[in-house]
């Protein structure tokens, strides 16, 4: 399984102009299908089908918790948060991708797209986990 994480083109700019703010609510939703287009800016621009509500998954996805921004090395900044966990209940949760977006800003600007490289399934009672990179977190910015 090759997992691919892709930022949208406007993501860096949205951090640079303060559109994305750590005080915002960032949500991660699970998709049964979707297409990554780097030029998409808002949730409405993205072509996707969200996992149906139920079995432990709620439409809109789950808000990131304990969002942190830290300085790493000297000129980089790291965005990190707790891993996101859905526990399947009453049936399985299956998804092939995930989409992170800012639920606070108008139009819900999208941040990044995670392609799981195939459908992943958590059976009833099991966890569906998104585990952020232990070194780089969700995003590590390089300012040059």
């Amino acid at each position, binding site marked *: 399984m090759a997992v691919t994480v892709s*930022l*949208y083109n406007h993501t860096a*700019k949205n951090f640079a102009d303060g559109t994305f703010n750590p005080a915002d609510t960032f949500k991660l939703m699970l998709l049964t299908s979707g297409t990554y287009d780097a030029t998409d800016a808002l949730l409405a621009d993205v072509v996707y089908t969200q996992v149906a509500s139920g079995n432990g998954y709620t439409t809109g996805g789950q808000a990131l918790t304990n969002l942190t921004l830290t300085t790493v090395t000297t000129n980089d*900044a790291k*965005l990190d948060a707790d891993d996101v966990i859905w526990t399947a209940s009453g049936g399985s949760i299956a998804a092939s991708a995930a989409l992170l977006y800012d639920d606070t800003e108008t139009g819900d600007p999208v941040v990044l797209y995670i392609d799981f490289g195939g459908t992943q399934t958590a059976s009833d009672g099991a966890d569906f986990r998104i585990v952020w990179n232990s070194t780089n977190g969700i995003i590590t910015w390089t300012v*040059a």
Partner: protein
Amino acid sequence: MATFSKFNSFSESLAEGKFNLGTDTLKVYLSNTAPSAATHTRYDGTTGTTGPAEISAGNGYLAGGKTAPIASSQQSGGIYKLVLSDPGAWVATADSIGPFQYAILYSDTATNKDLIGWWNYGTPVTLAQAESFSVDFDPGTGVLTIQ
């Protein structure tokens, strides 16, 4: 143009929304004190550590420095680039300005007037009466990129 260096706090402050590099008033002030990338964080305010001491006002130099207008604040292919216009020359009037060796960029809009980076001109410069000094930004490469 002298080499641009960034304050360590800048990246994190940027991601935390302390700047709006599309609309903030960005200014350049002059100093003869070496900046500390690791410790200096602000021009003014109450949070963080004040940056290098500014040269004395007078003779054509106003406290706070000059505004560097934002020429563009855009991304291309996911890489963000900030381009600034030149802030205009300082001209020594009745007497000298300086000495100074560093031109320091900060946001005059941010709550604590947070520092961004600086240019080191190598040796202290003193402007004699009627002499001028300009900070010349490269319109192609811009001041900084983020990716």
